[in-house]
Every structure is written in C-alpha cells, then in structure tokens.
C-alpha cells in the first residue's frame, strides 16, 4: 500500500493539491465493513422490531492521514465502484472511504426501501464508527443529498462538504423531465461506466432504484444547504444535462460556498473525470486551510 503521507508527518502548508509524481502507484482498496443500527424512522415503518442493524460494506484506501479523511458517497442505485477512480487519486494523500449505501452494492438490502433521510441517518452512524476526526464528505449526484443530510445531523464529524453534480433542480422535479434528461445523460457516459451501472442496478433492483429516486424528488437541497455551517464546494461539469449552471449558482449563493465549473466534465464525474474532481476537491481543501490560517 502506498500512502504518501506517513503518520506523524506535519501537514504541508496548504498543499494537498499536488500533481502526482510520475510513476506513482495508486493505492489499492481494502474492504471496510461497519454495522450500524437501522434508523428509527425506518424501524417504525417496518414489522421488524428491536435491534435491527444494517451492515454497510464499502472500500477504504490508505491508512491514517494528516489531512482529514475523505468520504465519497455514490449516486442513485450504483455503488462504491462508481467513485473508485477518484478515490484512488485522493488516496495518495490520505485516508479515503467509499461506502455502498444501504440497499446498493454489497451492503444490506433493507426492505422497505429507505428514504434519503433514513440513508443519511445510517451514514451518520457509519461515519462516527469509521472515522475519529471530522471528515470531508463528497456527495456525487444523489449522494449529495445524503451528505447534506449527514452534515446537518453530525456537524462535528464534518470538516467540509463537496456537492458534485448535485440533483435535483426544483424546476425539474418531475418524472418526465428527469427521465428525459437521465436518458441524455446516459449518452455522455463511458462504456465502462455503463457496464458498472448496469451491474449495480441489477444488484439493487430496479424497484429500489425508482423508489429511492422518488424520495430524492421530494428532498429540498436548496433549503437544507443554507443551514450548513461548514465550508461547501459546489461542483458542476459543463457537459452535465442534469445540473444547470443557474442551479449550481443558486446552491452556491445559498450556502456562501465555492463553485467550480469544470469544462468538458460529465455528470458521473467521479468515474469519468476522476482527475478533475480529485484536483478541485484537493484545491478546495487547500483553500479552506489557507483561509483558516489567514483568519488566525
């Protein structure tokens, strides 16, 4: 395993963003499994009583790091593999987690299908169990709704939030509109991404995917984002049909965070544009660090 930042090393002067040295071997992932108690709201909806727990499997790269650990949360119906290319790059500088959300990938598949707040509650529990210090939450697509929920539940455990390709725009919160755009978005995906996505959908089951999305349509991220008290980065690719420039600006304005618009980057940037996403995330961390030092 290659971890560039060794334990005990003093953190460089706001220099997380560095080009990878030539020939560096990107670290490989390890299995990471944590069991969290099922959220109370979900328990009340189901017949199962008592101490039901969900097993959240996922991947972990690197060991301990000076920099805050980074948690990448995947989008609708897919799993950790979707964010792995970005995670590998980020892992050269420290600890990176990519959990499979409950119901997705190899995590438990609870029924009834959990809503976004329920997923957030479970992930908050997962976060407390997995990391010691505050972490950077990177939500991709629908994952951004989950990380928003987590950041509001456990602010102390969150260092910063990155909303990559955040959905869903208020003006488009209709099935018809979303289906059309989703279909356009598919055209921007690489073949490899489509293969992964097909596998993940199969594992999650189409019914679960549709139900989760139904829950996502009822979320109001533009309202919740304003309540965040941690630095926020909104990140949008110019070739993303699901996220408009106006929406990204609106989100940024509501939370007073940063906005980056990445030319030529697609919606599934965590998989198809890992270089760009990892760079802007690290650049964002550097900026936070510089601002903190300037504020001291």
């Amino acid at each position: 395993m290659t971890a560039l930042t060794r334990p005990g090393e003093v953190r460089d002067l706001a220099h997380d963003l560095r080009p990878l040295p030539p020939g560096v071997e990107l670290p490989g992932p390890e299995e990471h499994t944590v069991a969290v108690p099922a959220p109370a709201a979900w328990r009340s909806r189901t017949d199962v009583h008592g101490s039901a727990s969900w097993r959240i499997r996922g991947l972990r790269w690197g060991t301990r790091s000076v920099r805050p650990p980074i948690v990448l949360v995947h989008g609708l119906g897919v799993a950790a593999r979707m964010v792995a290319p970005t995670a590998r790059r980020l892992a050269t500088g420290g600890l990176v987690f990519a959990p499979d959300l409950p119901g997705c990938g190899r995590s438990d598949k609870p029924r009834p299908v959990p809503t976004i707040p329920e997923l957030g509650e479970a992930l908050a529990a997962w976060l407390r169990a997995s990391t010691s210090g505050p972490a950077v939450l990177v939500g991709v697509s629908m994952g951004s709704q989950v990380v928003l929920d987590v950041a509001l539940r456990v602010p102390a455990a969150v260092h910063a939030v990155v909303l990559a390709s955040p959905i869903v725009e208020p003006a488009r919160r209709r099935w018809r509109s979303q289906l059309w755009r989703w279909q356009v978005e598919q055209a921007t995906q690489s073949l490899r991404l489509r293969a992964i996505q097909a596998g993940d959908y199969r594992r999650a089951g189409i019914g679960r995917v549709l139900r989760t999305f139904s829950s996502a349509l009822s979320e109001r991220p533009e309202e919740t984002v304003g309540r965040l008290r941690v630095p926020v980065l909104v990140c949008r690719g110019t070739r993303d049909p699901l996220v408009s420039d106006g929406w990204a600006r609106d989100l940024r304005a509501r939370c007073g965070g940063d906005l980056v618009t990445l030319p030529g980057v697609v919606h599934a940037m965590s998989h198809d544009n890992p270089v760009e996403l990892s760079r802007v995330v690290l650049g964002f961390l550097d900026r936070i660090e510089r601002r903190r030092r300037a504020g001291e």
Partner: protein
Amino acid sequence: MGRRDRVVVVTGASSGIGRACALRFAEAGGALVVTARRADALEELATECRGRGADVLVAPADVTDAEAMDRVAAETVARFGRVDVWVNNAGVNMYGRTEEVPARLWHRVVETNLFGVYHGTRAVLPWFREQGGGTLINVSSVLGHTGFPQQSAYAASKHGIRALSDCVRQESLDVKGIVVCTVLPGPVDTPLFRVAANWTGRKVVPPGRPVSADRVAAQVLRCADHPRREVPVGGASRFGVLAARIVPGMVERAGARVLSRQHFADQPTAPSEGNLFEPPDFGARVDDGWRAGSRRRSRLSRALLVTGLLLGVAAVIATARAGVAGQPIVGRYAR
C-alpha cells in the same frame, strides 16, 4: 476535447499577442486563465472575455517568479480541474548594444523571456503528465532563428525558448498526449516596441511590415487544435526562418545592414528601462497602431522589398555555393 471544453492559460495576457490570444480563446468558449503583472488590466480583459462566453480566472503573477507560476498552474486546476493549453507568451524587449547596455537590464530580459517560459513550463508539465496530455505553446520569434543587432538579450532568449521547447518535447515523448509547439512571429503590431527598454538613443519602430497580433493569436489557436513543432507567422517570417537556415551569413548581414536601419527612427529618445521592471500604466491593449498610416506603409513596403530582393539573391548564392561548406565569415569591423 472540444474547443468549448478547453482550459487555456495565457501568460503576458495584459497586452499584445497575449491579449489577442485571450480574446480569441474566449471566442471559442471554455475556460481561460489570464496572467500578467497588471491586475487591473487583467480584470478589464476578463470582463471582455466573459462577454465572449468564456469562464475566466484572473491570476496576476510575474513570470520571473517560479513559485508564482506554480501557483497559477495550481489555481487553474483547482478551479477548472484541468489545464489543456498553456501559452507561454510573456515577453519584454530591449534595444541597445551588447557592450553598452547595463547588465541588469540584459539579465532581466532573459529572466522574463526565457526563465519566464521555463517557469511556466515547469509549472504546467506535472499537471500535463498527471492528466496524460496537454498542449504547451511557447511564443518565440523569428529572432529565435537568426540574430539581430541591438537586440542580443531578446534574440538570445528567443533562441533559448526554441531550445527549451525542443528539449521538453523530447523529454515528454513518453506521454503521447503532451505536445509542445513553438510559434515564431516576425514583427507584430503590439505595444512591445514602445514599452521596450531602449538604450540606443533612437526611437524604435517595427521593421518591415508588422503583422497584426490577432494573426499570431489565430496561429496559436491553430496550434492548440492541430499542434505543430514550429510555426512561423506570416510570409515574411516564414521566408526569414527558411533563409536563416539556408544562408545564415547572408541573413545576418542583411539584418545588420538593411533591417537595423529600418528599425530605428531618426528621433532621439532618452535611455529607458521600459517595462522591464515595472509594468507601464499604458498599452494594455492588443495593437499599437503601427499598421495604420499610409506614409509608414510606403516606407516599410520598400524595406520589405529590399529584404525580399536580398533574400532572393541570398537564395541564388546559396544554390551556387552548394557543396562549398564551412567558409569562414570575414568580419568587417572597421571602415
């Protein structure tokens, strides 16, 4: 990567060729990072470029500062995730005899022109390697192929830029996506002549018929789309580069005799350090009006004609003496 998705960095963007490049790249859309010493000039340029549809980041920096260039590259990728085209354009000029000009001015020209390109190159190459490609465009000059009296610092630095480009091209052969282009403009209608340091006592005017900076910018864009090793801009410079290869001695003498006479007006000026150390508070624009005015045109077209004739004669002589190589150059030092 389409034009609209391109992330472009231009150094020395506040005026002249850099400004023309920025405007042209902005026209194509995508993201643009403009850098120069003058923040106010850059802000003004940025507004214009945004109006043309580009996403613009203003990053004031001095190319002589290696760390500042590193920061520009890092800011670029932090903001846009990528850097596709990096145009090393920033340059200054100085006129004066090698033995007469103050050494610190000479140093400064090389620092800005050659070290500046080096700093930009070393700042961007690691990112190119990480992302697996990128286009590096270095703006040299026809004076990267031949010399010119009273401009030794400039010509030496422009020769250096060519050599640097060649070396970097060889070094990055292992990454297929990295391409290095050198653009060789001749005299260009920019504020450069006016803001150049001048130790000759005479006013500098562009020799020959200067091409517009926009034409150079067009060539830079073409390089970004279809990279080429070295690209002369304009017929005169193409001819100059060719002639400098075939009959270097002839071109040297022609430059010393004909063009140097065309390069200085009979108008005395006090010695000045130009924009070498402090950016000027004027000239934050593309052209300097050298192409306007019919009187100058007639004089300059005459100059061009003379040059063309000389080069023609040179070509004939070159053909005639093919095979007779290694003739010593007999210098004429005294009258």
